[in-house]
């Protein structure tokens, strides 16, 4: 099976290790991975801040980049939610404004084939044990988009539970937003920090070594706060844990 990796702009520029890990996990499971270089960003930051028109070139670009593939996989729940929930809206609005039959077609084409990594592993490949090894205590933060918009449910947990050596501990208040919210973190910095503080307090109370999530934008916020406070807990993307093996363990 050949799939296209949608690395996302955040991972490309700031967290390439997550994209690399995604490639390794998929390849280990016998999937042939492509990285169409045309891709950049899904347009979520612009869209959520109120600049819908500015996302249109990115919708078109994303659709073009992935046109030749049946499956697009990305290690970012919020980007999938953007494609699934908002691309059709962007297309419909463009149509209503008398522009872009092509745009709405492009938007629609992506919806059925775009998968978040854990969805793809569990639903399409039908695996929960990806042969990973990670001897640490881990607590899982389900990001809002994955939790509520995609309904990832227990897929991430099932994947983590199958990792050898890994001890999964419950995160109190797991379903509460960490306070990132894209530009919210900047526009409402005080509230965002207060939310992040509570998330970190809950995470530290677990005594885990690693806080795992499936969305690096939330992890950038949580991890950045953890580091500022020199906390004995690191934030790590789920893909990197799944990529870790006995032969090639994550340091």
């Amino acid at each position, binding site marked *: 099976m050949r799939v296209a990796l949608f690395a996302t702009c955040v*991972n490309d*520029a700031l967290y*390439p290790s997550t994209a690399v890990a995604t490639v390794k996990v998929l390849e280990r499971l016998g999937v042939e991975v492509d990285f169409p270089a045309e891709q950049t*960003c899904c*347009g979520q930051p612009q869209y959520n801040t109120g600049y819908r028109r500015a996302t249109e070139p990115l919708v078109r670009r994303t659709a073009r980049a992935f046109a030749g593939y049946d499956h697009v996989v990305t290690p970012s729940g919020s980007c999938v939610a953007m494609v699934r929930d908002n691309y059709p809206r962007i297309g419909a609005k463009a149509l209503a404004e008398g522009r872009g039959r092509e745009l709405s077609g492009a938007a629609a084409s992506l919806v059925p084939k775009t998968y978040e990594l854990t969805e793809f592993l569990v639903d399409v490949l039908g695996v929960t044990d990806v042969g990973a090894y990670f001897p640490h205590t881990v607590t899982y933060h389900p990001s809002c988009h994955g939790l509520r918009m995609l309904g990832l449910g227990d897929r991430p947990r099932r994947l983590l539970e199958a990792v050898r050596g890994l001890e999964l501990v419950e995160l109190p208040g797991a379903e509460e937003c960490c306070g990132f919210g894209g530009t919210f973190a900047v526009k409402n910095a*005080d509230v965002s920090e*207060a939310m992040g503080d509570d998330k970190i307090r809950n995470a530290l109370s677990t005594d885990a070594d690693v806080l795992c999530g499936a969305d690096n934008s939330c992890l950038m916020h949580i991890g950045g706060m953890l580091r500022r406070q020199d906390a004995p807990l690191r934030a790590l993307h789920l893909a990197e844990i799944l990529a870790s093996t006995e032969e090639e363990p994550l340091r």
Partner: protein
Amino acid sequence: MSGTYLGMPSFPEAARDAVRDVTLRGNLRRATHTIRDKRAGAVAELDDWGRLREAGKRIKDHTLRHLDRYLVQVEEAVTAAGGTVHWAADAAEANAIVTRLVQETGESEVVKVKSMATQETGLNEALEAHGIRAYETDLAELIVQLGKDRPSHLLVPAIHRNRGEIRDIFRSEMSEWGRPAPEGLTDTPAELAEAARLHLREKFLRARVGISGANFMVAETGTLVVVESEGNGRMCLTLPETLISVVGIEKVIPTWRDLEVFLQLLPRSSTAERMNPYTTMWTGTTDGDGPRAFHLVLLDNGRTDTLADEVGRQALRCIRCSACLNVCPVYERAGGHAYGSVYPGPIGAILSPQLRGTASAIDASLPYASSLCGACYDVCPVAIDIPEVLVHLREKVADQGGKGHRLERAAMRAATWLLDHPAALTAGERLASKTRKLHPERLPGPGARQWTNSRDLPDLPAEPFRDWWKKNRA
């Protein structure tokens, strides 16, 4: 200060103090978490919750689509039942109508059931200006009124107060408005409730005019419905000689049968009760029973404009259950006052900027008062997609190009250009990686400074993913 929200600072400014107020945050956290857990339990008891929710949504949508027709039907039915209907285009008109109606009774005191519509119009202050005193009789409203405070929650307007604060307010303020608090009042709930009961009973027995809102208006019969927990509302609705109800035009539902859906959705969503303790319904006037004169003031005040907005109109489905407040992480930290209106929390963030427009600082900032976590949409019993409306309103605010938004627009355009030119993007990423040792830990500039106040930036990688791919896979 109560009632008037003009000149409110923007949401982030208004929230700043609340976020640092440890008592307030504690009060809010305790209260919202208790009720949200209870609600989840009450909702889980029904295996047809999803269908009820869909039904509630559809009934409301249908009614809103034919609002003109149903409002005329309400008017006809109320008139036929012996009531009088008044139409108010805005707050000033509604207040003028109510003031005139009270003056015509010759009274200078009124008792009120908790009513959001009259909070929205600032009726109490308008009456006060004409020498008419309005007494709030809902316990939480009473606390707010006595404390010269503003409501901070739809259902529990005094949610931001703890028992000790309430005792202090009762002790120092009750005597000014009527029967003083009993000697040696403590902060036990039973004593506080008894003090309020004694204080309010005098008001109920004396009052000849009652003012209410309504949770629902049934078009086919002209029946108004108030749903409450304390029974104080029922006193206001049945004892006075004249009853004036001020109701937003979106509160109409077509038939009695439809009520069944909402009488299930509302209590479970709001108080986590299977059924609310008091449901009072009245249809016009009845000889020898209840008020002898009944007036219905139908309030628009921005609702027609809201209705005209295809995405935003879903906010008018709201049945004011407050479930969205109780799960909202932003409300929990910022408190209700920061939203600058009688409608706080997620619903306030989408309703106020639609009812009032986005010209003021507070209204322009409300659509951004959310991390778009989606918890509000999940619990809303009439499935209002609050995040969708927030983003839609953000677009409106950004388009109007107020303070900060011109720069932001330019930045967004630049980002889009960069993201639409992968070669330039890659060059930028490479440059950032090459110079990564030089990057300071705390950044200057508005956004970046805020970010690095409390968080470290991630280390820049040695190379962007694109380059890794090129070297290792392409």
